[in-house]
């Protein structure tokens, strides 16, 4: 099946999105709808002594005000550990925490009422440094203390490795608190239905998990909760966890009215999920020929106030802390630490960008000291299929480290880098550097990772594909219909898709972890096989063709033992049997044993990319421009070339933001970058020119050979930018984002 050739087709959602006719959940309104306001904490860390809602309730137009006592089910949520209250009752742990919820007839009244909720606080000391927070006398956010997770993975003996090393590079690196900033902020409408059930219309990344979390909050049967989470106006991981859903669900059930919320950008930046900042101490030993001998890594993950996915993110970072290089001796240790610095959760890359910034930097520094070039030192160390990873598991699936490295070396940018580096201005310096990355895909070992898909043959001979995975911009729904159409031998326009909702589609896991296309390829292929079997069975029953009859898709229909049938004919022939539905289920392959002490590890299937970056640094101001990027990416099997390039464009922009611009600045628990004039993301004027190199090393465990690419495209660009600044100026950047002032200070250490 992996020999299907996919034609370029337009996105299934292009027209609606380009013309503005697509209805996002935040566009919806319902008769009698109320507006919610989240009353947020005034302090980053405090005990709640009393909440008085009487003044707020008295305001004309206010329908209800809820406090913690009004939570009908379990007052908490969180994918791994539900320790984040929907409404805080006794304690607040960050300034985005909710202390009360208001529903009113207009948004304006709701906001006014929120200001009338009187909360007495007993202010507690703010915990804002993850390393300080680990000290025994640090104030504690949670009863169990400030350690969310501690993980230690070792292999070999690092001390021995360092003794044998000719060069040892040791540094501390720091990474930013990146915000997802989707165009559509956290928003949605909760609608109570006449039968007592609740419909939740809110863009998110996993309708079926939302359903369970909401059931727990409301104390309701999950079947009574219908979640519609598609389409989403951008997610990037920030809508994997619940956001506003719990609050509006409670308000809707209490008032019996639809309740809507649409966070302002400011509220989103203050209260929303972020990428975990990491402090990484990394010591790496090399032999004089560049061979890696040991890597000793300690990561401190600034978890923020609640658990969410902080543990799996720490562990994925530790899994990748020595990349997929041949390192015989490793010690990867990590601490996920609670602080009052907002909340951090899933974000494209899931811990990998942070550690690879450190590792690839140590790598280039070693190369420079040893007089090796960046390609040679990496080629010496990249692992191949069948070898043992730095954390000790055998790599059974495809490994394309060498492939992407070879391709990036041959890129036009790398080949002609000396010409690209020329400038005629005395104050400008240009540099080129490269980096590579694997990115473990899927949820990891021990976490059920599965996908289902239905293919319905409709009365007119066209198809409806039903699959849970949401579309939040990646182009996956176009890819899904192409894969289904490719298997069925029809044009993709014949396949309609119903997805991202608990009603009428089937659970296929979260749209995260670079897993959507891969999961769908196998779930759809399984449904397609079911299709062939069932059609053959039905024909056998009707025409007595024998039980071993086979059907094959061909040219808009199927060859069957009773001759070729178009899908229209099949639809008519079997119109009595309703529904004409074929079901496919698929469970991700995983390792057979866990890495001791590291829940979820190892991952089994990887994405691979290498990227080279050309930067220009203005030595007078420290301003750095990313001018050109080359990306070598292994897609396994390209389904939609335009979407692959679009993912690269977007990934590079997000990686560029991480490297040069973006950071949520929090001091003493207060967010200082509350809008886009201070939280800086790249604009179209800042993004580079691209060179795309698409490789197709078929992933053997996918029926169609595909790999996920959504995350890895933003990873190598981050170290590549930092290292290109070094190539341009000679300074090593160890803290990101590399803002003009930071670069300037590196160039002028005396300042």
């Amino acid at each position, binding site marked *: 099946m992996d020999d299907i050739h996919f034609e370029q087709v337009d996105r299934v959602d292009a027209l609606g999105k380009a013309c503005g006719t697509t209805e996002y959940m935040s566009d919806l309104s319902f008769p009698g709808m109320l507006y919610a306001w989240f009353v947020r904490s005034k302090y980053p860390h405090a005990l709640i002594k009393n909440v008085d809602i009487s003044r707020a309730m008295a305001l004309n137009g206010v329908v209800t005000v809820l406090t913690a006592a009004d939570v009908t089910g379990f007052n908490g949520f969180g994918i791994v550990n539900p320790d984040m209250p929907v409404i805080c009752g006794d304690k607040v742990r960050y300034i985005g925490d909710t202390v009360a919820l208001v529903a009113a007839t207009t948004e304006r009244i709701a906001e*006014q009422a929120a200001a009338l909720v009187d909360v007495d606080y007993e202010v507690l000391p703010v915990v804002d440094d993850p390393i300080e927070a680990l000290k025994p006398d640090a104030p504690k956010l949670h009863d169990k203390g400030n350690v969310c997770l501690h993980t230690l993975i070792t292999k070999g003996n690092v001390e021995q490795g360092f003794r044998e090393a000719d060069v040892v590079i040791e540094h501390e690196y720091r990474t930013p608190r990146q915000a997802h900033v989707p165009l559509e902020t956290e928003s949605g409408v909760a609608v109570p239905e006449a039968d007592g059930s609740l419909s939740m219309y809110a863009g998110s990344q996993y309708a079926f998990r939302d359903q369970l979390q909401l059931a727990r909050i409301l104390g309701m049967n999950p079947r009574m909760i219908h979640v519609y989470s598609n389409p989403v106006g951008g997610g990037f991981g920030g809508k994997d966890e619940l956001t506003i859903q719990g609050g509006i669900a409670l308000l809707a059930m209490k008032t019996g009215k639809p309740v809507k919320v649409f966070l302002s950008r400011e509220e989103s930046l203050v209260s929303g999920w972020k990428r975990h900042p990491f402090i990484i101490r990394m010591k790496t030993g090399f032999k004089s020929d560049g061979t890696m001998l040991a890597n000793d890594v300690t990561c401190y993950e600034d978890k923020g106030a609640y658990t969410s996915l902080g543990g799996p993110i720490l562990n994925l970072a530790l899994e990748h802390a020595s990349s997929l290089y041949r390192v015989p001796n490793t010690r990867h240790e990590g601490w996920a630490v609670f602080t009052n610095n907002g909340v951090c959760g899933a974000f494209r890359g899931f811990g990998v960008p942070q550690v690879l910034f450190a590792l690839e930097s140590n790598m280039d520094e070693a190369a420079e000291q040893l007089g090796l070039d960046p390609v040679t030192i990496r080629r010496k160390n990249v692992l191949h299929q069948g070898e043992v990873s730095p954390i000790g598991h055998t790599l059974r699936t495809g490994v394309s480290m060498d492939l992407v490295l070879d391709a990036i070396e041959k890129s036009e940018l790398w080949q002609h880098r000396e010409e690209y580096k020329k400038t005629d201005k005395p104050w400008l310096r240009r540099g080129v550097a490269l980096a590579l990355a694997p990115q473990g895909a899927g949820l990891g070992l021990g976490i059920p990772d599965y996908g289902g898909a239905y293919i319905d043959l409709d009365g007119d001979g066209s198809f409806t594909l039903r699959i849970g995975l949401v579309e939040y911009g990646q182009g996956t729904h176009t890819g899904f219909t192409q894969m289904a159409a490719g298997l069925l031998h029809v044009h993709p326009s014949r396949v309609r898709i119903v997805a991202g909702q608990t009603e009428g589609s089937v659970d296929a896991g979260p749209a995260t972890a670079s897993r959507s296309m891969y999961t769908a390829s196998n779930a759809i292929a399984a449904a397609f096989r079911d299709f062939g079997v069932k059609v053959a069975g039905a024909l056998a029953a009707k025409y007595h063709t024998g039980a071993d009859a086979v059907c094959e898709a061909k040219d808009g229909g199927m060859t069957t033992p009773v001759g070729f049938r178009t899908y229209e004919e099949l639809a008519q022939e079997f119109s009595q049997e309703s529904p004409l539905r074929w079901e496919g289920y698929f469970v991700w392959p995983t390792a057979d044993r866990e890495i001791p002490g590291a829940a979820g590890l190892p991952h089994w299937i990887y994405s691979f990319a290498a990227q080279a970056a050309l930067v220009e640094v203005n030595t007078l101001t*420290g301003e750095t421009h990313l001018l050109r990027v080359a990306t070598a990416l292994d897609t396994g099997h390209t389904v939609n070339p335009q979407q692959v390039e679009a993912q690269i464009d977007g990934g590079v922009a997000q990686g560029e933001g991480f490297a040069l611009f973006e950071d949520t600045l929090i001091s003493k628990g207060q967010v200082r970058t509350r809008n886009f004039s201070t939280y800086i993301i790249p*604009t179209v004027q800042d993004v580079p020119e691209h060179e795309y190199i698409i490789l197709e090393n078929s992933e053997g465990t996918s029926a169609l050979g595909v790999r996920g690419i959504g995350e890895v495209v933003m990873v190598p660009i981050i170290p590549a930018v930092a290292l290109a600044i070094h190539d341009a100026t000679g300074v090593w950047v160890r803290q990101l984002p590399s803002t003009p002032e930071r670069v300037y200070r590196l160039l002028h250490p005396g300042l």
Partner: protein
Amino acid sequence: MIKEFEYHAAQDLKEALELAEQFGPRKRFLSGGTDVTVRLKEGLVTEDVIVDLSHVAELRFVREESGVVHVGAGATHADLGASPIVRQHGHALALAASRVGSSQIRNVGTVGGNVANASPAGDTIPALIVLDAVVSIANRKGTRDVPIIDFFTGPGRSVLASEELVTELYFPVTGPGELTGFGKLGSRQAMTISTANMAFYFRIGDNRRIVEARIAFGSVAPTVVRAHRTERMFCQLPPLLSWDAIRGAAQMAWKEVAPIDDLRATAVYRKEAVVGLLAEAAYEALASCWHER
């Protein structure tokens, strides 16, 4: 939450001036609204009447008359960037206007709003200062002219009285032998408030030396400032294109600015950066008439 306020859209200048007098300190003008609406959202507008000037066609023009360029307060940044008159006779202003915000902001934001807003980071202000611009101010009874360097009294403050509005800015044309330029340091290429900005004017004499220089810096003091000592350094440069000499002259700027630390940058870095901005832009401009030894 945007508070409730009274709103009047003036249809012509006369009505605008009447409304200004009627509401006095209770009113706030709105031209493009790109500063006012942000302030409204942030709850920073104390006035409770908005007088919208955006329909006053008389305020939107660019023309040249007997060696003087007149720019209406209602001219947008896009108007200035595209105007052949401004590009030719007030190049620094065209450059500055073209670096404001983004196309969307430049299409509505006005030069009058930029000046009246009196932000130390306003991008057209240093350009207008080095062009020796004059601000024309009107109230219902008449008009008065104030040199732009005297217009600002502090961050967000100016000599404008509550019943007055800015009608236009005018400055003498620049011609052959006169070089002007603008430079800006922000956090990215577009949509960025200046961490520091700078404009210069050089008149080149017969001996190819700079015989008159005007240099202004923004975002490095409570108001945009002239840098007289740095100007004198440039006037002393031999007419040879030397990067080291030009940078050396620019270095004097360090002593003429008094920036502060804020979220965008520290004071000490801002001092260094304005030196760089000036050196870079001056070098590029002087390369058109000076040569290396």
